[in-house]
């Protein structure tokens, strides 16, 4: 792990200045990054105006059994932006995510991360790059190693990028508080936590190395709806504070519409529609998107929403369980204020 050579980019300048790998971990606390999207939470970062962080061009993948899992998929994620991928099972969205994460080599096409092509990248550089490219997996029950404590799980990621013991000691509690848990959660095992708490830990683990892009692979699909809202709010808040980009993969159109700036709809390995989230929801172009939209249950419910409900004021986001009081990362008053009149 001592082979700390060069980093491809420094976070603060968002350029390609080489810095020592460990420098990342020696910053005091979590400073708000200059250059991060500074608008009030929820203000979408302009999709086209933003700087390109990730670009996938013409990705294709055929598996050994002859299944064409992904065919000619291209997409762009801007800095500080959230891009959603929607599709049903077999649509190739997870395979696409794996190729973007560099876990699967595409048969065709290329992935460029901050201008660097992942194809043919030397192993050492790829590993260093992974600090900036993290993942939050789907199932809270399996996204954390059941035999490791929360601390060990987070430290594993940090150690992989050369964070020294002292740095790890301070980063873990910091990250836990950042996602609305308390430092005492560090010594717990996954089976002692609820689903929402587990996904918070998974988010903390992903953010610990201060990534530029986090791939959320169905990250909220397995959560109860009341808890899902907490986690969605947390993601939005973290993005506003840290300027991190999300690639958000889900089968739930409503969730993607809510969280994403740009949406890519996939069907049988191909992109059938791409565009701004709001437009996709209100005026879908492709037949499949329309079918998907029509099949999304409770669409009628969504349309009727906001008129007569809720009659009872319900608090905005708070942390779930355990951390009542000090540890809760309540949404800012700003966010609450921007709520539309009910």
């Amino acid at each position, binding site marked *: 792990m001592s082979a700390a050579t060069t980093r491809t980019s420094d976070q603060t300048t968002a350029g390609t200045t080489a810095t020592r790998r460990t420098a990342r971990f020696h910053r005091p606390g979590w400073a708000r990054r200059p250059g991060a999207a500074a608008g009030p*939470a*929820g*203000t*979408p970062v302009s999709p086209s105006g933003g700087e390109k962080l990730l670009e996938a061009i013409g990705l294709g993948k055929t598996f050994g059994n002859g299944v064409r899992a992904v065919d000619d998929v291209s997409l762009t994620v801007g800095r500080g932006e959230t891009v959603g991928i929607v599709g*049903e*099972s077999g649509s190739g969205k997870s395979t696409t995510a794996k190729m973007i994460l560099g876990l699967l080599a595409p048969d065709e096409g290329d992935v460029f991360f901050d201008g660097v092509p992942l194809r043919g990248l030397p192993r050492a550089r790829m590993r260093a790059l992974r600090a900036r490219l993290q993942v939050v997996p789907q199932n809270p029950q399996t996204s954390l190693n059941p035999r490791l404590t929360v601390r060990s799980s987070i430290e594993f990621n940090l150690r992989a990028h050369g964070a020294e013991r002292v740095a790890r000691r301070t980063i873990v509690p910091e990250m836990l508080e950042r996602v609305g848990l308390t430092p005492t959660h560090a010594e717990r095992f996954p089976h002692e936590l*609820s*689903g*929402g*708490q587990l996904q918070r830990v998974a988010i903390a683990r992903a953010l610990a190395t201060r990534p530029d892009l986090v791939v959320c692979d169905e990250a909220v699909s397995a959560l*109860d*709806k*009341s*808890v*899902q*809202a907490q986690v*969605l*709010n947390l993601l939005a*808040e973290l993005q506003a504070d840290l300027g991190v980009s999300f690639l958000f993969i889900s*089968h739930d*159109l*409503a*969730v993607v*519409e*809510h*969280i994403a700036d740009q949406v890519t709809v996939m069907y049988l390995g191909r992109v059938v529609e791409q565009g701004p989230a*709001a437009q996709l929801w209100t005026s879908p172009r492709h037949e499949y998107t329309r079918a998907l939209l*029509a*099949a*999304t*249950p*409770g*669409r*009628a*419910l*969504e349309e*009727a*929403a*906001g008129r*007569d*409900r*809720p*009659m*009872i*004021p*319900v*608090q*905005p*986001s*708070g*942390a*779930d*369980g355990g951390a009542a009081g000090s540890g*809760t990362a309540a*949404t800012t008053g700003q*966010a*609450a204020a*921007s*709520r*539309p009149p009910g």
Partner: protein
Amino acid sequence: MSTPHTSTSRAPGPAAATTAARPAQPNVVLSVHDLNTTFAAGSRTSNVVRGVSFDLRRGQTLMLLGESGSGKSVTARSIMRLYGRNATITGSVRLSGQELLDLSADRMRGVRGARIALVPQDPTGSLDPLRRIGAQITEVLALHNVERLRRAGRRQAEELLRLVGINDPKRVADSYPHELSGGMRQRAVIAIAVSCDPEVLIADEPTTALDVTVQKQILELFADLQDRLGMATLMVTHDVGVAAEAGDRVGVMYAGRLVEEGPAAQVFASPRHPYTAGLLAALPSPGVPRGTLRSIPGSPPPAGAFPAGCAFAPRCPVARDSCRTDDPPLVAVAPDRSVACPVVNPASPSAPPSTPTAGAVDIPSPAAPPADQPSALSKGGPR
């Protein structure tokens, strides 16, 4: 390995009206009253379903909506008495007037599959992996219709598969479960469930494992079968959208209790219980800016470990001190609607307890809108 159960005290609790006092409702197929299910694990017991009451009418779909640990699935299984020795089920479950909790294990077996059928969540797991679909259907047919011949059973099986929208029933009947897609498997499971023309169909998260486009087809199939066969459906779901789409009525469960019950359109248009309202507000929907979803703080209590008083009180924005000590009963707040919350229904603490569909007293509530207007939510609306 029989299915013993204990049907003990039928004594009416303080909050429960006696069975006899309930007027017989026309078309009520299934009447559940003060259902309690307690599991014993070693020396510990956990009360997972707590005093659930509802009526289900012919041709009607009641949605039991709740999050994990709310006891919705246990309610469904308790009605069918699917638990073993470690479960104690009390209260009353009447199927067309017949008390199920009093039946012998043998007679209950005759009810299951024939008069009440179950469609479980995971179609893959609920089929015997080593037997062909056709054989699994004919097995049930033969079981409940002894006089039928084997060949007739086979023909009947294919007819059933056609009924559930399978175009090539011959091939499917000859297939093993793993050779079919998820949607096909769920159709086969439904075919088995409706094979004996049940009065009540209980579906436990029947679409959760499916893609949304397939889910839509399966929900349509349920509606279609209900029209054709006239059965009553009790569907368990965690998905508010599914409940809104496919339910005539909805019962919202939280921590083993029914906290709100009423026509789906009314409940979703104007929820009364703070939990229902919170759940609906937490859904992402167009126009809600990112980061401003109104989530309910905390998480649902784990099954069987419910706090004293109203179990929702610790997460409730309008809870009073009394909420933490007194468990509010489910009270009718309008014709056909009941809510278990004294805050939104101030008349209730002193009001006489009532059952959901008793419809006897209409307690005017300041919180209730004067009339529940039909909204775009009615069943069969835009899908």
